[in-house]
């Protein structure tokens, strides 16, 4: 097979593969720049499955992290330095898979020195980019915060002092049901009144966790507030020193404190992660700067795809001509030879 024929077959095979790949939503190349593409998929979004094959359809973006040193309490010293992030959507739901290395699995908070692993995604609630650290007054942000201890409560039921100290002896808790070691659950209604944080309506103190992802709004340091409407779900799994956490949300929630999504839009997004083993909480965390997220559309073909198709068509037509028009082929060969001679002064 001569050079021209090999070239032509090569081009045709590549084209065929490209067309196939486009049809199968496969991506060969991960995004090198910090643009997070939320891949449009047909069918179900893996809302609570970090190991779903569907995630392989989306490109991974490596998000670099820096220690938070804007306001105390700050993070000093080494900690988690990057996250792998993917996103998929199906026009109704959008989900993110966040992965990072963490040798310690910190999922309990029942001792004063226990802090949880956690990860958060932040979106602006205004058109412009608010201050990346929790936004500002009037430039608010929506935060979706996954907590390892909430996940543990959901996976293996509520944990408290009895898990830290199985042999702890307490004679009596008012209105507690059952036998020692008493659990907060099940409880008589009155017992809640004696559990201050729960009685005050603090979502952290509520032993009945429905989701490991808290939906919050913030407008500056210290203003993080649990939203009345909780719209996020997800699931995190730690295996072999790696956390894989899914955080998912419906596109539209009808809540003015939530970021709203639609196919074809771009939106700034930022990430933060906490290593509980390093006693990280609150501002003691690793943070990213704002990235751009583009939500891929299924209904509209984007401009770059049209251009790519046109180029592919032209190349295909050229290949066919080269294969079946020997005169043209000879002319082209002549041109290549002459050009080669021109560029090589030794000939």
């Amino acid at each position, binding site marked *: 097979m001569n050079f021209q024929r090999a070239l032509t077959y090569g081009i045709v095979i590549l084209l065929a593969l490209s067309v196939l790949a486009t049809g199968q939503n496969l991506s060969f190349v991960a995004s090198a720049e910090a643009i997070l593409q939320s891949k449009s998929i047909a069918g179900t979004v893996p809302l609570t499955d970090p190991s779903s094959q569907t995630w392989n359809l989306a490109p991974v973006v490596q998000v670099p992290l820096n220690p938070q*040193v804007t*306001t*105390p*309490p*700050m993070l*000093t010293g080494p900690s988690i330095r990057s996250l792998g992030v993917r996103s998929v959507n199906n026009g109704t739901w959008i989900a993110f898979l966040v992965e990072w290395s963490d040798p310690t699995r910190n999922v309990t*908070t*029942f*001792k*004063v*020195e226990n802090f949880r692993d956690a990860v958060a995604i932040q979106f602006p609630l205004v058109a412009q980019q608010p201050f990346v650290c929790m936004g500002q007054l009037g430039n608010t942000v929506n935060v979706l915060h996954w907590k390892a*201890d909430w996940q543990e409560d959901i996976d293996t039921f509520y944990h*408290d*002092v009895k898990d*830290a100290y199985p042999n*702890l002896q*307490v004679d009596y*808790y*008012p209105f*507690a049901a059952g036998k020692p070691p*008493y659990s*907060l659950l099940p409880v008589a209604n009155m*017992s809640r009144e*004696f*559990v*201050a*944080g*729960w*009685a*005050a*309506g*603090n979502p*952290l*103190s509520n032993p009945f966790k429905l989701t490991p992802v808290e939906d919050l709004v913030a407008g500056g*340091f*210290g203003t*993080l507030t649990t939203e009345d409407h909780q719209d996020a779900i997800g699931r995190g799994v730690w295996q072999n020193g790696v956390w894989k956490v899914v955080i998912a949300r419906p596109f539209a929630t009808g809540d003015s404190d939530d970021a709203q999504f639609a196919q074809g839009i771009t939106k700034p997004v930022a990430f933060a992660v906490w290593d509980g083993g390093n*006693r990280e*909480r*609150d*501002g003691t965390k690793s943070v990213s700067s704002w990235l751009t997220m583009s939500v891929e559309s299924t209904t509209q073909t984007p401009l770059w795809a049209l251009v790519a198709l046109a180029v592919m068509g032209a190349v295909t037509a050229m290949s066919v001509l080269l294969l079946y028009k020997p005169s043209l082929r000879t002319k082209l060969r002549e041109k290549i030879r002459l050009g080669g001679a021109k560029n090589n002064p030794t000939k």
Partner: protein
Amino acid sequence: MAKVRNWQLGRDMDFPYTAVRPQKQFAAVFNINRCIACQTCTMACKSTWTFNKGQEAMWWNNVETKPYGGYPQSWDAKTLEKLGPQTWQSSIYTGKTIFEAASIDEVAVGYLPEDKEWRAPNINEDTSTTWTQGVELTMAQPWHRTFFFYLQRICNHCTYPACLASCPRKAIYKRPEDGIVLIDQSSCRGYRKCVENCPYKKPMYNPATRISEKCIACYPRIEEGYVTRCIAACVGKIRLQGWIKLPEEAVPDSPMDYLVHIAKIALPLYPQFGTEPNVYYIPPRWVPRGHLAQMFGPGVEQAISKYTNPDQELLGLLQLFGTTQRIFSKFKVTSTDAIGYDDSGHEIVRVPIDEQVIIRDPAYLNIT
């Protein structure tokens, strides 16, 4: 950082917020000399506020044996170590406060005591210092070589609370009406910066609710004019509660102002921390002065001297400790009686300075 005035240090100091003093400031005087460590105060608090899930190791009021006891263990020594040299020039503190010694990544120096440090609240009970000389008492010194004493501890409801300053959520607030410092249970997110930065270690983490709690100065009682449970329950009558003002605004017939600013027998605990704590202690007479000076500042000698030789007014006021559940804001001492009055001048309590001795008629002797 703002500059605020801390009268206990005799100077201005750095604090993250500007100074706003409350209309009234909760205060209490604890007379260490009278305490027998019966822990009735501790149980009164426990049975009122901290009897539920997650509060098993939580003691908002505790009585520890000094110098070795501590709840949490070695809380004071650990913080003092972080503070560096604590020097005074007469009544002006020339060392650094916990706010001034802090690095840029924190609001105040502190540490987070681990779970095990909270688990033995009465560790080293009645443990005295070592008897080194073979002679316990010397004629030259009025104090004992071998000593221990009881330290009664609640939240100090500081004028410049480190818990409040370090809370990144501003979930801790100081009430303008009475200066009581509270953790808002609905907005605390369990970061434990208050546990880490309060030098007295009085905010505590609740592992069941996963947020922090602290002494609330029995505010529902105070709002009704009653003293806190720990103060009401004290069988040794060592405690007196009232309202304190700045030294230059001291009212002579206010019990707190009299004891702290006028008689100067009651001193703040570790004033060098810089939080301007509002529980004041009458230092124990039998303890080496150097030890007391480190704990209560430069006023120790004078306080003990005055307490040892009280005048009629001081003697009368000391008799009023623990005599009523009501808060009395004014007092008067006559030649025979000590009297406490409420805000509107109504008499609440009256006690004789010298108790009347009644000798029973032999006809009625209780002999069987």
